[in-house]
């Protein structure tokens, strides 16, 4: 068992796709949304849509951490790298490197001389801090419940190692509140949620229960592999055709009902809930995480006095989610794409001025972004 080939078996995929077709034959369109960047990417990477009947509509929600990170956050990171260029090293996960801010990206700033280092884990960032005692090392802390525990752990570890030159620019988000915001969106008529795999391994299935109970929308936590996704869709359709709604776990080999208590304890120790800005979606109450007071000394925003540079409320920010919300960049419909009400093809910038070479919106930057997946896998 290598946990790769077994979940990419072509014969089983065809059988599953037949079972799915049988289940929904002669039914109206059923709309399902996945809210996980890796689901989006693998649906395109394996050409899964071609295995589904035409009355199943798959939408990609705000599941890519880079795509939902506001422009102002990138601007702030760039501002720190410029204003404190002599004393700061920026460390970041790879995807964020090319994400566009208002006028530049970290990739471009690096070419102009900024110190930006791509790391593979927060512990690498700690090593950078240890090896550069004379510099202040800023880690760009974005992401959902999957990555945030590792960022929490890095601060606990920095405290233990007495590393006083390690800081985090936080913009962490949690998934259930944005799912609720999407359900309250009148333009979207969802029939089911394919819940994220790795987020759910941390938070478990309970945080989604309100969706099934209060909104009567079935949820299935599905793994990333093609057969996981197909089976997840099948499990959703079973509930929909029986008019049931509950939270079920397809990804049971990893995701458990109670999640990962150790990771949750780390999260709770370092972070507390706050409102958060989502690129193109606006501020969503309770959808973010901020540092608890004990860990505030790690907060890059406090250390670097950057209130002049970012996080001013701009036209991008509205609440609740409104129709036609545009990102700060004129013409980009990232917000509507993240909400699933529009497709990349509906955007007049897509494939023309906005492409992976010159991304206008973040959905085109991250490999998990809907626009990047469309472009890369030939939906253009």
């Amino acid at each position, binding site marked *: 068992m*290598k946990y*790769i080939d077994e979940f*990419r*078996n*072509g014969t089983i*995929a*065809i059988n599953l796709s037949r079972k799915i077709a049988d289940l929904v034959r002669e039914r109206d369109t059923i709309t399902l949304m996945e809210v996980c*960047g*890796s689901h989006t990417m693998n649906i*395109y*990477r*394996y*050409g*899964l*849509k*071609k*295995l589904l009947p035409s009355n199943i509509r798959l939408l990609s929600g705000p599941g890519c*951490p*880079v795509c939902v990170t506001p422009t102002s956050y990138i601007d702030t990171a760039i501002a720190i790298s410029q204003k404190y260029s002599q004393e700061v090293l920026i460390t970041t*996960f*790879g*995807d*964020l*490197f*090319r994400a*566009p801010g208002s*006028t*530049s*990206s970290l*990739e*471009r700033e*690096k*070419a*102009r001389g900024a110190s930006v280092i*791509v790391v*593979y884990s927060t512990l*690498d960032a700690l090593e950078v801090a240890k090896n550069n005692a004379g510099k202040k090392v800023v880690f760009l802390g*974005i*992401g*959902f419940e*999957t*990555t945030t525990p590792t960022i929490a752990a890095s601060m606990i570890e920095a405290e233990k190692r007495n590393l006083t030159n390690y800081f985090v620019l936080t913009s962490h988000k949690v998934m259930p509140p944005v799912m609720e915001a999407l359900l309250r969106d009148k333009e979207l008529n969802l029939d089911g949620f394919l819940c994220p795999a*790795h987020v759910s391994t941390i938070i478990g299935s309970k945080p989604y229960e309100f969706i099934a109970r209060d909104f009567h929308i079935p949820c299935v936590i599905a793994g990333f592999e*093609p*057969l996981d996704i197909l089976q997840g869709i099948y499990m959703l359709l079973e509930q929909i055709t029986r008019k049931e709604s509950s939270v079920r776990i397809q990804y049971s080999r990893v995701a458990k009902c109670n999640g990962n208590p150790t990771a949750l304890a780390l999260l709770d120790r370092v972070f507390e809930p706050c409102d958060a800005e989502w690129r193109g979606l606006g501020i969503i109450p309770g959808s973010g995480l901020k540092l608890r007071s004990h860990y505030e000394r790690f907060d890059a925003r406090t250390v670097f006095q950057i209130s002049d540079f970012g996080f001013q409320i701009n036209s991008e920010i509205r609440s609740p989610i409104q129709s036609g919300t545009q990102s700060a960049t004129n013409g980009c419909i990232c917000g509507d794409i993240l909400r699933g009400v529009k497709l990349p093809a509906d955007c007049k910038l897509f494939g023309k001025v906005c*492409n*992976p*070479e*010159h991304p206008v919106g973040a959905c085109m930057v*991250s*490999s*998990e972004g809907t626009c990047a997946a469309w*472009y*890369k*896998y*030939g939906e253009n």
Partner: protein
Amino acid sequence: MKNDKITLAHGSGGKLTHDLVKQLFLPRFNNKALSQLGDSAILDIHGMRIAFTTDSFVVKPLFFPGGDIGTLAVNGTINDIAVVGAEPMFLSAGFIIEEGFELSLLEKVVNSMKEAAALASVEIVTGDTKVVERGSVDGLYINTCGIGVVNDEINLSISAIEPGDKIIISGTIGDHGMAVLSERESLGFTPSIKSDCSPLSSMIKKLLASGVHIKFMRDPTRGGLATTLNEIVNAQKYGIVFEEHTIPINDGVRALCEILGYDPLYIANEGKVVIVVSSCDADKVCGILKEDILGKDAAIVGEVVPEPVGKVCLKTVIGGTRVIDMLVGDQLPRIC
């Protein structure tokens, strides 16, 4: 946001590198030999066809499982000559060394070059040494040139390719890129992934001597198999379809790619060749390759097709299809 500075993406071998070559270098150096954009230029000198190539090596770290910057410099240059159907003969070696670099390390690299050259029966006949201030380069860079002779009966050309031809890869993909990455980032995978860095000249010589109808060859180095296939279809009147399940790949490489979110199709190889061959000779070519240790995992992975023109399509393991485009920048590890 317009590019006014060179970014690392311009050196990744993907789309930006190609744009730089086509928009900046080609129009200015404009000549017939260069415009072919082959791995080596083929020059007609007094009735002899000479293959001439150059390459620069800036690999970090200098030493990695399966090779070092020295073996890479020699084998990389040899392979660029071999894939145009020439027999590599002479190389040059230019060393740009950082002040303070350990002499023992330089000796180790030079010994590797000596052994690699001897193994492939080529001679390093001219060279240059420059030392620059600390910080101006990262330890050691090597530039090489290589020349070889193309036999009269050999005539490989991208324009000879036609629908129906088969695409063969001589072995597993992604080994070199993932070995270097794993070593550079100290990812600590055991057993370590080994680079495939090796000279292809003797295997290719056997192949060409066998009389099979080879149309075109290229070594899929920077940018990987996907980039090479895109280069083959670029501006041509055909496309390529290849099948995911036929592509040879080592378990370690695949696992590391899965973990980091990399696509092995875009990862560099340093001891592999992509061969486009007439359909009727495909099995024979595979057979000859498999007789050689460097070609033991050779496989037919795809076919040249009339449609879609200028595109490379992959049939996925579960029966879907997707377009394989040229990469825009370096692949970046994903957040989650």
